[in-house]
C-alpha cells in the first residue's frame, strides 16, 4: 500500500510539474500585453513602458523568465502582481482563498448532504409524484445559467424585498473591531444568495447520481437478503444499500473538489464575492502573468490532489480495488 501511495504521489507530482510548465509557456505565447491595464487611463511613454517591463522581468527572454519563476516557486515566492503592484501573488491568493473556500465549501456541503439525502428519498419513492417533480425541478435548475439565477434572486430578494444584501461578503460599515459572532452572522447573511444560486444550479448532479446509485444498490442480492432477514427498511436503506453508493459518490466528489478553490467567475461577479475566481478572471483579462500562474498552479495542484485523494478513498472504501 505504501509503495502504491508513493508511486501514485510521484505520478501526481510529475503531472503537476508538466501542467505548470505548459501553463507558463501557453500564457507567454498567448497574444496581449500584460501592461495594457496600467496604461488604460493615460498616455504612457515608451520609456515608462520599458521601465515597467524591466520591473516585472518582462524584458527578459522566455527561458530566463521561466528560470526566475521556478527559482521563486522553490522559495515559495510566486512573484509580484502586475495589476495589483506591489502586492505579492501569495498575499493576493491568501487574501482571496478564505472567501472561495467558504463559498465553495458551503455549496459542496449543501449539495452532498441535502442533494444526497434527496437522491436517496427519490430512489425510495421511485415513480411517485415527489420523484417526478423533484427530477423536473432539479433538471430545470441545472439548465439555468447561474449568473441569470443570481441576478433574478438579487432583483427580488435584495432590491425588491430588502431581505438579504445584494452583494459583498460583509457589510462595508461593520466596525473592524466587531466581535466574531457579529462578523460571522454578517458573513452568513451575505453568503445565503451566492450559495443558493450555485447550489440550485448544480444540486441536480449529486442528486441524480445518488438516486441512480441507490436504485442500482436496491437490486443487489445482499440487499434483498437483508430484507429477507427481516431487517428494518430504514436500516436496509442506510446501513446496507447506501454504503455501496459511496464509491460512485466519492468519484463525483473528487471531480468537484477543485471547485472549492477555482471559484465561480460568474457568480462571484454578480455578488461581488472577493474570491479566487474573480481574481483569476481579472488576471486573464489583463494578462497579469504572475497572478494567473499562481491561481492556475493552485487549481492544478488541487485537481491533482483530488485525483490522488479519490484513489486513496477508493482503496479505503472498497477492498476490491485496494492494491496488494
Amino acid at each position, binding site marked *: 500500500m505504501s509503495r502504491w501511495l508513493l508511486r501514485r504521489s510521484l505520478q501526481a507530482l510529475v503531472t503537476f510539474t508538466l501542467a505548470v510548465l505548459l501553463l507558463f509557456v501557453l500564457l507567454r505565447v498567448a497574444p496581449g500585453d*500584460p501592461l495594457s491595464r496600467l*496604461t488604460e*487611463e493615460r498616455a504612457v511613454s515608451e520609456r515608462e513602458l520599458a521601465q515597467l517591463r524591466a520591473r516585472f522581468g518582462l524584458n527578459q527572454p522566455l527561458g530566463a523568465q521561466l528560470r526566475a519563476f521556478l527559482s521563486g516557486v522553490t522559495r515559495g515566492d510566486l512573484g509580484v502582481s502586475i495589476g495589483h503592484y506591489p502586492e505579492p501573488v501569495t498575499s493576493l491568493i491568501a487574501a482571496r482563498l478564505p472567501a472561495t473556500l467558504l463559498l465553495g465549501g458551503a455549496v459542496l456541503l449543501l449539495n452532498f448532504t441535502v442533494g444526497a439525502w434527496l437522491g436517496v428519498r427519490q430512489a425510495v419513492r421511485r415513480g411517485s409524484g415527489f420523484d417526478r417533480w423533484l427530477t423536473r425541478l432539479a433538471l430545470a435548475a441545472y439548465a439555468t445559467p447561474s449568473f441569470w439565477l443570481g441576478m433574478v434572486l438579487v432583483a427580488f430578494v435584495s432590491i425588491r424585498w*430588502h431581505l438579504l444584501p*445584494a*452583494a459583498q461578503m460583509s457589510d462595508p460599515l461593520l466596525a473592524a473591531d466587531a466581535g466574531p459572532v457579529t462578523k460571522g452572522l454578517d458573513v452568513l447573511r451575505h453568503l445565503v444568495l451566492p450559495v443558493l444560486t450555485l447550489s440550485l444550479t448544480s444540486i441536480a448532479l449529486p442528486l441524480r447520481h445518488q438516486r441512480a446509485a441507490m436504485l442500482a444498490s436496491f437490486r443487489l442480492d445482499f440487499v434483498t437478503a437483508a430484507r429477507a432477514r427481516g431487517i428494518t427498511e430504514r436500516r436496509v436503506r442506510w446501513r446496507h444499500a447506501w454504503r455501496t453508493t459511496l464509491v460512485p459518490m466519492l468519484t463525483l466528489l473528487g471531480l468537484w473538489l477543485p471547485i472549492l478553490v477555482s471559484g465561480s467567475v460568474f457568480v462571484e461577479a454578480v455578488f*461581488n464575492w472577493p474570491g479566487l475566481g474573480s481574481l483569476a478572471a481579472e488576471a486573464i483579462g489583463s494578462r497579469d502573468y504572475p497572478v494567473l500562474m499562481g491561481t492556475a498552479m493552485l487549481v492544478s495542484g488541487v485537481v491533482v490532489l483530488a485525483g490522488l485523494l479519490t484513489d486513496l478513498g477508493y482503496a479505503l472504501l472498497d477492498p476490491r480495488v485496494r492494491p496488494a
Partner: protein
Amino acid sequence: MLGRRRLTAPRLLAAILFVLPSALAAQQRASDHGAIVIILGQEASTPVPTLLGTKANIDVSDLLFLRLARPGRGLVTTDEKSFEPQLAQRWSRRDSLTIVFELDPRAKWHDGVPVSARDVVFSFARMRDSTVDPERALLLRHLATVTAESDRRVVLRFRRAYPDQFYDATWHVQLLPAHLVDTIPPERFAASGFVRAPVGSGPFRWVRRDPGRQLELAANPGFFLGAPKLDRVIFLLVRDPEAALNLLLDGSADAYEAVPPGSGPPRLTANPALRVLTAPSFGVVYLLFNQRAHGDRSRPHPILGDAGVRRALSRAIDRTTLLRSAYGAYGLGTSAPVAQAHWTHRFVPKGPSYDPGAARAELRRLGWSDHNGDGVLDKNGVPLALRLNVPTSSAPRMAMATQVQEQLRRIGVRIEQVRLEFPVWFERRKRGEFDVDFAAVTMDPAPSGIVQSWTCAGRAGSNFAQYCDPAVDAFLEKAINDPKGGEREWRAAYAALQNDAPAAFIASPPTLFALHRRYRNVHLRPESLYSDLWLWSVDPARRIARDR
C-alpha cells in the same frame, strides 16, 4: 449664598440665551455629518504620489494628499490668478521664470507635523527623478530648481516662460511628508509601510485597506481648510457594473462614477433615493486612422495615407446617431482631440458636417469608384476595405463600431470589425497593427497634453498612428508656447487638425455619477471627482442609519 446668587432668574435666563444657540448650532453641525460608501471599479492599492497611475489610486490620493494649488473651477490652466490655494496660502512672481510660494502655516500632516518647505523640495525632487516616475519627470522638464528660502517659503525657477508654467508647478506634484519618506529608497517605496498606511495632509486620513474588498478613510478634524462633514468614506471595490448598480439600488452603497450610459440611468432614477449627475470629462472617443501601413511603419498606409480619404470617411460618419445609440441622452460630441472639460473646448471650430453624398463625391474625385459592381469602391484594383480594431471591454465602442461599419458601407467602404480583448487590442495599437482603431483616451487637464498623440514628436510615445504634419505642429507650438497664446491660436491649431483628419473625433462622454439624494453641497470636479468631498454634507432630514 454665593451659589444661590449665581442661580438667580436673570442670570439663569442669560445663561440659557447664551448656551442654547451654541448647543443648537452644535446639534445642527452634528446632524449634517454622515458617511459615504463609494464604489470603485478598480482597486486603489497604492494611492500615494509617485505610485499613482490608475484612476482609483488618483481618486483616493486626492483625498489624502494636497498640491500647492489647484486650477479654479473654469480649469483654465494658463490663468494662474484663477488657481485656488491648497497647501500654498499665496504666491507671487519675481519674474517670468520664478514663482514664490508661501505655505499655509495652518497646514499639518495627519501625524501633526507642520507642512514645511522641506516637504515641497523633497516631493519635487522625487517627482523629477526619472527613475521614479518618468512620465511626471517629463512633464516637469522645464522646471530648473526648487529651493526653500525659509520654513514656509519655496521658490520654483523655470528654464523658460510658457503659459502652462504655473499649472506645471502645481498640478503634477502632490506633497509627500519628507520626515516620513525621505529615508525610504525609491525602489523600496511601493512595498514600504508608508504605502500600506499613508500619512497625508488632505481632508481625510487613512484608516485601513482590506485588499480586494474595500478601503476606508476618516475625516481629518484638524484639516486646515475646514473639517469635513463626512466622517467616514468607504471605497468599495466592485468590478462588475451590474453588481455596482445592485449595491446602489439595495442601499448598500451611495455613489458610483461609472454608470453605464444605456441601462444605468433608467434603473437608478426609478429609485427615489438616487439621482444621476453628470460632470464633463477629459475623455475623448475617436476613430484613429493609421498613417502607416498595417503593421509596417516603414510604408505609408495605402488608403489612409491620403488626407482626402480620411476627410471623406470622417464626413460619412453620423455622429448624432452614434452618440444616441451609445450614450443615450448623455452623449456629447467633439470634433477635435479636445474634451468637454478642457477650457479650450469652446474654441474648437464646428467640425465637418455629416454628408455621405459629399463624402462619396470626394472619394470619386480621388479616383475611388465601384468598378466591379461589388458595392465596395476600389482604385487600381485595391478595394476600399479597412480593418477596425475594437476593444471588447468597451460596450459603447462595440455598439458604435457596428453603426460605423453600416454608415461607411453606404458610401462603398468595407469595414471589417476586429473585436479584441483589451490587452490584445492595446498590443496591436502599440505595434500599429490596425487600419482604423476605435480609441478612447483620458487627456491631461491642460490642453497642451495634445502634443503627446497628435504631433511629430509624439511618434515615439502615444502617437500610435504615427501622424505627423509640421504645419499642425507649428500651430500647436504657437498655441501652447506663446505667452500670449489664446483663442485665435487654439482655433487655428484645431482647424488645421480637423482639415488633416488624422481621426474621426466622435465623443467626449461625460462622467455619469450615481449619488444618494441625501448629500448636499455636491460638486464634481472633472479633473478630480472627489477633491471637494470634504465640502459635502448630509441633509439632516434624510440621514440614514450609517450616517449616525
